[in-house]
């Protein structure tokens, strides 16, 4: 199947939008979707249609689609009852509308009658040459067009992650992580019942979409398993494809039978299929988002030799354990790197990997040490721990009764500047040496206003909430890099 590029462009980059079924009631989909489109700052023309002509939120509402201008609208966002939609879509096609997103329920999820209606909807979409997304979906988001045509929040920051989901709520979850981490989204679409446009169709569009660098999907079932495999493999050959699947244990537990085939729980086949297709499979929603965000913001490692840089011992030990459980390697510190670090640090540092500074750092130590480690040819990736500690103390001083006297104002400013500098140094070393450098601290979620995590975000990187999560994300990067290399035709 060749993808309907013009249809997807109409869906994601429309010149104008019609909200069908506009409501004046702020609790109804027909109001919320119009509100969200306007609030996110969509710059194209916006129209509404309803049983009564008038105006809602300053937008012109027509009672008859025939009253709308020709060729000015590409997308219709449909909130009308299912049985009225065929006539609506025919009228929209007359006006040159190329794509529809159906939030309307009452289709495949609604018994035999709804299933019949859904079959007719697909046939109508074909006959009209219209891309019909949904039905029963939450909406579509596209940051290049400042488009937030959805019945839920949030509107995410702009970025390069393209999302498709069989569950509309997980679109919101993924975008909430985008808001939290600052690593943004290009497109996001809730596939709803996926009557005419499937998850694989969206992923193929993302593979071809210049605004998207990483594809991210949530799926529950795959109706055409073999077809999905072939298409997902082609997508993953172009761009990282991160997948999280719900319902992994249903139908399992058949391993007890003596026949070897009964060892085949469905999830093991699915897992093998993912690895064969080059798909990055994540176990949870947050792991999936962090893997996608890492692909979007870090270069792929060329090997699995990791150095952990920490300002305190315990963090390094736990991180070493996490690395040992992954496909990464806590590489022995090369002799020349140890010697170079000796010239920068007083004798009490660990002199091994993890590089534990043990509080030995002075004003310029951390930026210099980061660059030395990242730049070493026998190091493929670095995990940096301890960012933000001093700013955390600074926050306590700032809110305490002695601020700003006793020299507190000066030291608070100094600590906050230093943590921002360290985050900047980690990003700069990553850029300069084209290697992943991941910064992890729980302050990213416990105190997101801390100067360290704020600076990581400002540098366009993800600040991982724990070292373990950084290791998991880096492990996904290395597995993809290794698979790309191993499966490349000789």
């Amino acid at each position: 199947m060749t993808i309907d590029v013009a249809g997807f462009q109409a869906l994601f980059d429309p010149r104008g939008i019609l909200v069908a079924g506009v409501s004046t009631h702020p609790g109804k989909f027909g109001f919320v979707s119009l509100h969200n489109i306007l609030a996110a700052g969509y710059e194209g023309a916006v129209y509404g249609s309803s049983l009564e002509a008038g105006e809602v939120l300053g937008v012109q509402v027509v009672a008859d689609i025939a009253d709308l201008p020709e060729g000015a609208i590409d997308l219709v966002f449909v909130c009308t009852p299912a049985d009225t939609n065929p006539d609506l879509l025919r009228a929209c096609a007359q006006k040159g509308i190329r794509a529809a997103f159906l939030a309307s329920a009452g289709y495949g999820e609604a018994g035999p009658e709804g299933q019949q209606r859904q079959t007719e909807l697909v046939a109508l979409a074909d006959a009209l040459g219209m891309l019909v997304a949904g039905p029963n979906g939450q909406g579509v988001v596209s940051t290049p067009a400042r488009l937030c045509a959805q019945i839920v929040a949030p509107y995410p920051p702009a970025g390069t992650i393209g999302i498709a989901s069989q569950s509309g709520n997980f679109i919101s979850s993924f975008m909430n992580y985008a808001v939290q981490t600052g690593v943004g989204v290009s497109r996001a679409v809730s596939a709803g019942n996926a009557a005419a446009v499937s998850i694989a169709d969206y992923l193929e569009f993302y593979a071809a979409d210049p605004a998207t660098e990483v594809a991210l999907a949530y799926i529950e079932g795959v109706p055409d398993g073999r077809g999905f495999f072939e298409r997902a493999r082609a997508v993953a050959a172009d761009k990282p494809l991160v997948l999280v699947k719900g319902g992994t244990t249903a139908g399992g537990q058949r391993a007890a039978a003596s026949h070897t085939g009964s060892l085949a729980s469905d999830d093991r086949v699915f897992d093998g299929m993912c690895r064969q297709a080059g798909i990055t499979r994540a176990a949870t929603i947050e792991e999936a988002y962090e893997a996608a965000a890492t692909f979007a913001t870090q270069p792929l490692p060329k090997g699995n030799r990791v150095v952990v840089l920490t300002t305190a011992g315990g963090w390094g030990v736990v991180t070493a354990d996490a690395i040992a459980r992954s496909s990464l390697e806590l590489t022995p510190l090369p002799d020349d790197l140890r010697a170079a670090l000796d010239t920068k640090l007083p004798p009490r540092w660990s002199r091994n990997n993890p590089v534990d500074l043990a509080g030995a750092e002075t004003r310029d130590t951390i930026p210099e040490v980061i660059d030395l480690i990242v730049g070493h040819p026998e190091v493929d990736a670095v995990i940096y721990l301890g960012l933000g500690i001093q700013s955390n103390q600074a926050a306590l001083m700032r809110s305490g009764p002695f601020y700003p006297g006793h020299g507190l104002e000066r030291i608070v400013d100094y600590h906050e500047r230093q943590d921002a500098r360290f985050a900047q140094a980690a990003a700069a070393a990553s850029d300069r040496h084209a290697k992943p450098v991941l910064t992890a601290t729980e302050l990213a979620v416990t105190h997101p206003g801390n100067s360290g995590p704020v600076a990581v975000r400002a540098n366009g990187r993800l600040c991982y909430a724990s070292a373990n999560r950084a290791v998991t994300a880096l492990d996904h990067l290395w597995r993809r890099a290794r698979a790309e290399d191993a499966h490349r035709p000789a």
Partner: protein
Amino acid sequence: MPTLSEADSKRLLATYGVAFAAERQVHSADEAVTAARDLGHPVVLKLGGDGIAHKTERGLVRLALGDDDAVSEAAAALLAAARPEDGQVHLLVAPMLRGNRELIAGLHRDEQFGMTVMLGVGGILAEALADVAFRLVPITRQDGHDMIDDLATQALLGPVRGEPAVDREALVDVLMGLSDAAGGEPSILSADLNPLIIVEGRPVAVDALVEVAG
């Protein structure tokens, strides 16, 4: 859904490069004694035939037969155990292979994804371990290597109790053979190599059962 006899199953998969232990198909106790001498004692003796799918359950497998008398006696007993519904029967004589490690491999049709190649840890703990990996057919050699890497029980694949590490290339050969058989014989519904005994590091299939569309 008919199953092929063990001998026919092996013949079919061997055409696609799956390595089996040397064995002879004979029809009398005297022929079995001669075949056992050629192959070298000890041997395994099995009663085979198109109608016989579950030999172990019916006691139709005799292990570790060390001399002519043992072979002759077992052969006579197995031939006497044949039932009318077994149809045409024969005796399979094979060398008794020894190895501490057993794997399983096969072809299985998944409802969602179609035909798959399977590799797993075998032996009496296979079901409890459920340590298996799947790929969709056809597979590449790299997919085969990835399947071996997917097994959780990696220590079993290294050197164990004086036996060398499993020859991964030879194991990939088995998986490639299964994948090629699935491609070349669309009538195959499933195939099982159980067990795949690791003999001096090399996987050798000592039993095979192929199920075909009727």
